[in-house]
């Protein structure tokens, strides 16, 4: 399904769309307040961007360094070329340790690899322990945002969901009550778990350690209770040295939610006594993206979600309309590299307004890359006849000033004099769900000429 078609599903509930739009803009606003208080924020972004560029240019060396140090520290390191291999490594580790009950903290990588359905099919109980992820897991949905997984759900929907699955009392969606009930439910799961899976925010080549950031404390509750900890990371999560955490931790939470840092920033270096720690390093298409010069810097992403919160399209179309593990602007430049045909409409789900590039903590040129993907997609993926013809006509009109003036005049007259039923008719896609602006009587160039005289 194309992004625009999927967006119409989300757009059916107008009040929900308005809420979604405002809620995310509020998060963007909190980000602004937070970053404006930091002296040298732009320089900090510059450092983040340069460190990541250095990482990409030495990625193979850093990975080998990381492996060497992590192994010395007693962590078992695995390599997976794709999602399938990643999933079978996880299952094998679980089976070797006779682990049947698994608690997971947030990891977009395991979403990307579709780990949960695979493990469940193989008899493992999988519980997502981030509250938002638990909500979407119970609802049998995918996260719609990388930092706020259940942002598309109303509190009343969560209320009903918890009544069904956690046996809670009806509460008109009281967030406090629902969160405390989830806490009780998840505590039970933490106590019973045989194994814990976490993601990795940053892996440090120099020390062989890795850092996991959460607000809820769920990653640590899982990892410190279960006798087995498996951490899953994409190859791009490496940073050269521990001191670079100073840059990225200052950027990450402020960009994500406006917090100065996440509640818990946990540095794992060696397993605790009597327990096992594994790290799985996953490629799954990243090394190919690394070879695409125009799109390489998309791998710099530190998954803060700021580009989603600020995007006028994302805010009004919802994360599920992207039908990709990572939605929003960053997802729209990452996904076509994975499957050009499936994700061919995503780079068009943008006005190229540039807001995402302004807020990106590692300065990824998202709008430029969206534009470049469009150039590739229109050549390689068949486009609709209407689109092809109209683009051709528009090309001719824009190339010819006399034609342009004529079409403009006709357009303005038609807009002023046609009945609303015609302007907002099905034939005019621009009139769908919105009123068009009043057309001025004269064109800009006519106004400009008059002004000069």
């Amino acid at each position, binding site marked *: 399904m194309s992004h625009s078609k999927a967006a119409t599903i989300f757009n059916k509930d107008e009040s929900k769309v308005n809420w979604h739009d405002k809620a995310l803009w509020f998060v963007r606003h909190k980000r602004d307040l937070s970053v404006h208080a930091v002296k040298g924020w732009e320089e900090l972004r510059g450092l983040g961007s340069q460190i990541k560029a250095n990482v990409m240019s030495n990625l193979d060396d850093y990975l080998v360094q990381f492996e060497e140090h992590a192994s010395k520290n007693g962590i078992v390191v695995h390599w997976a070329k794709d999602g399938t291999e990643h999933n079978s490594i996880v299952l094998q580790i679980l089976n070797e340790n006779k682990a049947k009950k698994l608690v997971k903290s947030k990891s977009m990588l395991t979403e990307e690899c579709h780990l949960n359905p695979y493990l469940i099919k193989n008899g493992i109980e999988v519980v997502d322990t981030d509250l938002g992820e638990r909500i979407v897991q119970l609802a049998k949905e995918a996260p719609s945002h990388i930092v706020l997984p259940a942002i598309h759900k109303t509190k009343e929907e969560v209320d009903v969901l918890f009544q069904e699955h956690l046996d809670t009392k009806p509460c008109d969606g009281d967030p406090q009550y629902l969160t405390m009930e989830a*806490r009780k439910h998840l505590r039970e799961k933490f106590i019973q778990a045989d194994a814990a899976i976490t993601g990795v925010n940053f892996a440090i080549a120099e020390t062989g350690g890795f850092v996991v950031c959460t607000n809820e404390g769920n990653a640590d509750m899982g990892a410190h209770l279960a006798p087995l900890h498996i951490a899953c990371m994409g190859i791009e999560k490496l940073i050269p040295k521990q*001191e670079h955490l100073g840059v990225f931790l200052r950027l990450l939470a402020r960009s994500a939610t406006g917090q100065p840092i996440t*509640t818990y920033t946990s540095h794992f270096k060696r397993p605790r006594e009597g327990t096992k720690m594994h790290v799985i390093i996953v490629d799954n298409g990243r090394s190919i993206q690394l070879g695409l010069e125009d799109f390489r810097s998309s791998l710099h992403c530190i998954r803060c979600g700021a580009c989603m919160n600020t995007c006028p399209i994302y805010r009004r179309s919802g994360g599920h309309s992207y039908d990709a593990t990572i939605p929003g602007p960053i997802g729209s430049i990452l996904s076509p590299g994975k499957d050009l045909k499936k994700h061919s409409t995503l780079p068009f789900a943008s006005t190229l307004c540039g807001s995402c590039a302004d807020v990106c903590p590692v300065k990824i040129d998202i709008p430029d890359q969206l534009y470049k993907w469009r150039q590739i997609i229109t050549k390689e993926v068949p486009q609709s006849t209407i689109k092809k013809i109209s683009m051709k006509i528009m090309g001719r009109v824009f190339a010819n000033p006399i034609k342009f003036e004529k079409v403009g005049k006709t357009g303005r007259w038609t807009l002023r004099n046609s009945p609303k039923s015609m302007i907002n008719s099905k034939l005019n896609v621009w009139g769908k769900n919105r009123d068009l602006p009043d057309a001025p009587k004269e064109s800009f160039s006519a106004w400009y000429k008059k002004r000069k005289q």
Partner: protein
Amino acid sequence: MNSRSEILSKIKANKPASIRIPEIDIDFFREDIDLLSEFKNKIVEVGGTIYSVVSINDVIDKVTSLYGDTKNNYSVLEGSEGFNTINLEELNKPHELEDLDVLVLKGAFGVSENGAIWLSDDQIPIRVLPFITKHLVLVLEESKILQLQHHAYDLLEDEDYDYGLFISGPSKTADIEQSLVIGAQGALSLSVLLYKK
């Protein structure tokens, strides 16, 4: 070819020419501010509560007055025998800490820009402690407050820890309609007790 060498050789073939690593000039970010008051502000901003005690010997009295008669308590401070109801050496596994009410730990240092306090194995006898407890009390010497996260890593440069973490506030979530709820999977509250050396 196994996956390791396949991945590494693909990266080698596809990576760009070497790009140099930037130097971090910490002084560029430094500000002339009162670290202690900034730190206090940030603790409150992230949902914690701040108290001052005269000396480290007053901590347990303060904690008892704050939390009243709690059933399961543990403190790492010297002289906590009367307060502690748990003997960590008798534990078979960390799961037995499930009902811990109040935990008192010493922080190594704090960071004023984000209210984060660093603790590593030296300060945490069992890793799950600061998460599994209902209420967490962190005790910190007033002079051990740095300005920026960069300064923190400067200090940690030579410290070899097995596990360590920054804690900034109590556990929290806004996953239900963006309403902030304090107390998610980790500690329900965080009190920071500052004392002078």
